[in-house]
């Protein structure tokens, strides 16, 4: 996703001189090419995220479209008030880009794990929140954001995620993508959990003969209420998957829509509990510890379906 992001941004910035990339002294090996090719559109602000968000707003209010880049919580939580008061209140074209969503940098420890960011950023007015599910979605999200649609938070994984979509996609801001059709239940996934959702759905099909619809909810804010209501009405069982705390994240956003929809639905959130991760290990290891690997997800889905088997 990181590679898809920087490649697309470089391509767009070469055509549109308003586009700028600011980094908080992070992005070794990622941003160097951009900096070399477009020196007037690149600033390494230094290790100063509050300043990065404030300077980005100043640049944006003077006509620029500014991407701020750092990892995990640094470009959003360290400077949350600058994002809120400066970028969002003024509807400035500031796009905070974070790589290392969830536990992508798991082995670096708690400071480098972003598990509450969706919950926190979801509450900020005027801010769009996009967590692409694969490199294809990332490139199209960048394409959209670089046009200057106001403040946004772009939540990315790291490098090397597989392309989940088998075919070309037509990515639309605020519109979920149906990755797999299905009628027995719907898996709504965001960001890095999309590939897990697809793999789990395929296993359910082969092992249990169940057809799970998979929706990529790449735009978490504003969320696609219509797609959620449609899935609830048609499949009656909704499960959300996110590499994020279940407190306040995608699961909460979907639950809000379902609770107000009046549609009788069985619902399950799969994600991290709202705790600090103390286990040491890489992304796959930590996800497995918390039941977010494919096998654990399939097991939970099977149990969920068994529990509610008689209700259709």
């Amino acid at each position, binding site marked *: 996703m990181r590679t898809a992001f920087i490649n697309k941004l470089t391509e767009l910035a070469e055509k549109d001189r308003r586009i700028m990339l600011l980094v908080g002294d992070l992005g070794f090996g990622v941003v160097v090419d951009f900096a070399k090719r477009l020196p007037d559109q690149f600033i390494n602000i230094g290790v100063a995220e509050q300043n990065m968000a404030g*300077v980005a707003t100043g640049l944006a209010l003077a006509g620029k479209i500014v991407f701020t880049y750092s990892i995990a919580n640094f470009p959003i939580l360290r400077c949350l008030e600058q994002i809120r008061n400066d970028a969002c209140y003024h509807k400035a074209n500031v796009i905070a880009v974070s790589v290392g969503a969830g536990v992508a940098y798991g082995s670096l420890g708690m400071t480098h794990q972003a598990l509450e960011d969706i919950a926190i950023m979801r509450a900020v007015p005027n801010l769009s929140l996009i967590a692409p599910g694969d490199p294809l979605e990332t490139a199209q999200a960048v394409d959209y954001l670089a046009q200057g649609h106001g403040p946004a938070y772009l939540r990315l994984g790291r490098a090397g995620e597989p392309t989940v979509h088998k075919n070309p996609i037509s990515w639309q801001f605020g519109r979920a993508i149906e990755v797999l059709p299905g009628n027995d239940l719907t898996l709504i996934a965001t960001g890095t959990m999309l590939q897990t959702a697809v793999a789990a759905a395929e296993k359910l099909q082969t092992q249990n003969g169940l057809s799970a619809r998979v929706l990529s909810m790449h735009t978490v804010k504003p969320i696609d209420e219509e797609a959620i209501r449609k899935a609830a009405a048609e499949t009656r069982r909704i499960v959300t998957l996110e590499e994020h705390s279940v407190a306040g994240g995608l699961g909460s956003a979907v639950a809000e829509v379902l609770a107000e929809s009046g549609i009788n639905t069985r619902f399950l959130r799969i994600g991290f509990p709202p705790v600090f991760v103390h286990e040491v290990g890489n992304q796959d290891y930590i996800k497995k510890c918390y039941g977010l690997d494919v096998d654990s997800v399939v097991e939970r889905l099977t149990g969920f379906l068994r529990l509610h088997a008689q209700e259709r």
Partner: protein
Amino acid sequence: MISRARSSHIGGNFSMAEIVAVLYDEILNISPKHLDAPDRDRFILSKGHAAAAYYSILALKGFFPMDWLDTFYLNGGHLAGHATRSVPGVEVSSGSLGHGLPMAVGMAKAAKIDQRPYRVFALLSDGECQEGSVWEAAMLAAHHRLDNLTVIVDYNKIQALGQTREICDLEPFAEKWNAFGWTVRQVDGHSVDELYGALSVLPFTSEKPSCVIAHTVKGKGVSFMEDKLLWHYRTPVGEEFDAAMSELCSLPHLNR
């Protein structure tokens, strides 16, 4: 305004009155007729709690009707207690300290990139300079040689709960700005001539940002408010209001 609104911060409004007067009378290239002119100078009131003085000068300069001032702080009014961008002439909203200078740096940098002639001014409070983000931005401004950027510090030496030197001393203050790569001039912030003298010769040094430390008195203009911590928050009402108005109305420059 402040008395009617039962609001605070009169001391910090009075301490910067001459500063905004000189800026809007003589220095800034901003016109209410062309609010969005791309080459207008940008003024950022970073000490957003001093909105009453800011709104007053904007109204006097014709950015919005004078009677809006009567609605300051009030239910359904036009003017919130801190500077708000929805008000014509207000460049950015402020109120949380330490936000103005980073935004000013971004605007000044944009002017350099785009080779535009506009200048950027940020007015900071002294207590605000305890925010780390001020110094993050100060460092970056010098590094990028933003000589189109000027900071003015309203150095009235009193912050919310006491004197700056007793709470977290800023001194040696001018040396700090110097060390961060700025050229500093210190003036009497209530002397229109001294303020004009400094602000009309910007930048002080080519390729360096400029800092004007304006030595001021909190509550300036009303004898019983001057240099008194109480008037960071206290609202003048009743006899205090009448006494203050009487003193202000007898100031010589108001009768010219």
